[in-house]
């Protein structure tokens, strides 16, 4: 048991799971055990969106200091608007809608990396500026229209199997795929290498440019996927649907044990962190805290978790 614990302690993702369980226990202790299962099911539904974008953000952040994708919320909105508008509530147009939304996300990724690579704009500023443009595009394209998603998309996003959302299973598979991509492919190794030392990565014969390009593309595509399923889940796209996902995407990556300095990524941690963040909000709601208190508590707990988990001692 102690051996297991000492092994677990070394895992960067363990803290997010401990925090998640603690918050869940506190919530059901307050309600006297009522709704424990429902809360988890809801958490699994809502957290999946954060997990998908978290996976993309994780890859971007892992490519090294200064790399972060701030255009994720805008891309979610754009993809959601494009998807629902092209699908036009018609099941038959589902596929073409998905292709159109992912196509738009692809263009976003292309544009982001173009700014970073060709114009040498620091990624934070590049993705920030492009997010303004993307959002304007979404607003202007989707102007005032609220269209329901086709039934098939809505079903996919809301179906549950034995209390487990179908979406969560889909995202679990996606996560396993990402973990493999990270640890067992040349692309993933290159991402990790660039994050540690881009110059050494280039001189080791790794394709740095292509890999960074693929990473920003991947992040945009995952944001696009989130936009599509989110519009299915919440009964249509809205112009503010990306709100809140920026902080969430960064928070889950970092709380999940991925190194902000780059070179070290962690997929399981993203699950723990995303569930934790959702459950934390649920707990505060359950306790009936005021808006101010809820904000303060969210902040305090994020800082506490990262403090307990500690930074990367190996760096520098």
């Amino acid at each position: 048991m102690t051996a297991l614990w000492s092994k677990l302690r070394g895992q960067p993702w363990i803290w997010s799971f401990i925090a998640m369980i603690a918050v869940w226990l506190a919530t059901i202790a307050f309600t006297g055990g009522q709704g424990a299962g429902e809360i988890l099911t809801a958490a699994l539904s809502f957290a999946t969106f954060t997990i998908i974008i978290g996976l993309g953000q994780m890859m971007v952040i892992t490519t090294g200091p200064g790399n972060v994708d701030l255009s994720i919320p805008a891309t979610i909105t754009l993809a959601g608007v494009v998807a629902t508008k092209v699908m036009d509530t018609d099941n038959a147009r589902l596929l073409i809608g998905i292709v159109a939304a992912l196509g738009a996300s692809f263009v976003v990724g292309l544009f982001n990396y173009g700014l970073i690579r060709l114009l040498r704009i620091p990624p934070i500023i590049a993705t920030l500026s492009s997010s303004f443009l993307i959002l304007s595009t979404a607003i202007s394209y989707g102007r005032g229209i609220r269209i329901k998603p086709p039934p098939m998309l809505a079903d996919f996003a809301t179906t549950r199997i034995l209390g487990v959302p179908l979406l969560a299973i889909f995202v679990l598979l996606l996560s396993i795929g990402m973990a493999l991509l990270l640890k067992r492919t040349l692309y993933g190794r290159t991402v990790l290498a660039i994050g540690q030392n881009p110059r050494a990565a280039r001189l080791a014969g790794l394709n740095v440019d292509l890999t960074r390009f693929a990473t920003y593309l991947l992040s945009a595509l995952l944001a696009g996927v989130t936009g599509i399923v989110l519009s299915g889940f919440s009964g249509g796209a809205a112009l503010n649907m990306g709100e809140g996902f920026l902080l969430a995407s960064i928070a889950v990556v970092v709380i999940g044990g991925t190194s902000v300095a780059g070179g070290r990524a962690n997929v399981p941690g993203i699950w723990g962190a995303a569930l934790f963040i959702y459950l934390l909000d649920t707990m505060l709601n359950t306790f009936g805290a005021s808006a101010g208190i809820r904000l303060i508590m969210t902040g305090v707990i994020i800082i506490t978790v990262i403090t307990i988990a500690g930074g990367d001692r190996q760096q520098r």
Partner: protein
Amino acid sequence: MSEPAVALTAIEKSFGAVRALAGVDLVLKPGECLGLVGHNGAGKSTLMHVLAGTLKADQGRLVIGTQDVSRQYSASNASAFGIRCVFQELSLCPNLTLAENVRIVHRALKGIGWKAKARRLIGEKLDEIFPGHGIDVDQEAGDLNIGQRQMAEIARAFTVTDEPLRVVILDEPTSSLDAVTARQLLTFMRQEVARGTSTILISHLLGDVLDYCDRIAVMKDGKVVAEKDARDFTRHSLVAAMGATTGKAGPGTAARRQISSALAIEATPLTATQTGKLSVRKGEIVGLAGLAGHGQTRMLIQIFDGARRHSAAFIAGDRQADGVFNLWSIGENVTVSALRHLRQGPLIRPEQEQGMARDWKQRIGIRTPDMNNNILTLSGGNQQKALFARALGSKADIVLMDDPMRGVDIGTKLEVYEMIRAEAEAGRSFVWYTTEIDELKHCDRAYIFRNGAIVAELQGHELSEDKVLHASFAESA
């Protein structure tokens, strides 16, 4: 007067399970130059960090002058006690000018006019040590090349404000200097010693240590194993005391080989106008020589970028900046360039990767219990071996070496020379930038660089120190 400048007694220091210092006794007299030699990982640098206050010893006594400072000693008061250190890793702030970098080590430089004072201090010291250095003290340290940075750092260590100058530690101070500036430094060091300053010189260039030090201490496995007057040592006895394979000069150029006529590389330095052309044939070892920082590294990078992907491998000399992935294991560092060949479908196969790591641990003799340990658990020389393994283990036909033997012990060097020769026989081409003229003896041909241009080409039998130096310094027509 015989009271020592510094006395270290029974100093011990461990990093986890590794015992870096196992009870070191060392005494340094005022106005003495002590040479400190030993293999990579013998504990020299650790000992110097203890003396400089940047590492705290687990055990032992440190006396400076007559004062026992074992308890209160730290990096912040080391300079107050008159201890200065030029470390192997450079410690200038790249975003600050040289004058500003001087301010960092001198608390007395403050108030109005501090900058003028700092500028004067470093300017005068640079002029004194390295006449004709050509360094502007208002330049940011990051804009200097590695040799100039090293010169600036050395000069900084010898500047004096209100704190005394008692001991200066020079840890491989000439590793990035060319022969002339290295000579200037060593000459200055003797003058400084004559003025009563004590110096400790750590160097792998045994000739320098024998010629310029009064006394030599040899370290091995965290202990001082021999300590005598410099004149009582010979090159041979010194190497023997370090416990290395005795330094036969290697086969050198004696073993001329047949080299195919197939051309592997052809390139012209981009940065220079009047320049020769470089060509390398298949299976040839070609040296790049000349003074340090005259465009050799740039040439290597140009070849690397121009080569077909995966056809060239690069071996870094500046390990931290260009080579090592700090978060990875030794194994991952070795296999990174060969991952393409360790896959089944798109997935890397862990067994194959482990196998390759084990294989290279054997072949190149990386001293570690486990290739899954972090790369930083290795000493510098062994990290360098891992980088060699990375390049040689890739399938690249061209291997580019950026002065990779900097600060590597002689035993490792001899092993690597052997391996390079064998690989060349097997048809690989090597382009080898080196600052050590001795190493050119292992090359079939060499190009001499000056100001970014190729100014001479020397055949193997012409590669003498004389000729190389002559070509490096000759006035351009």
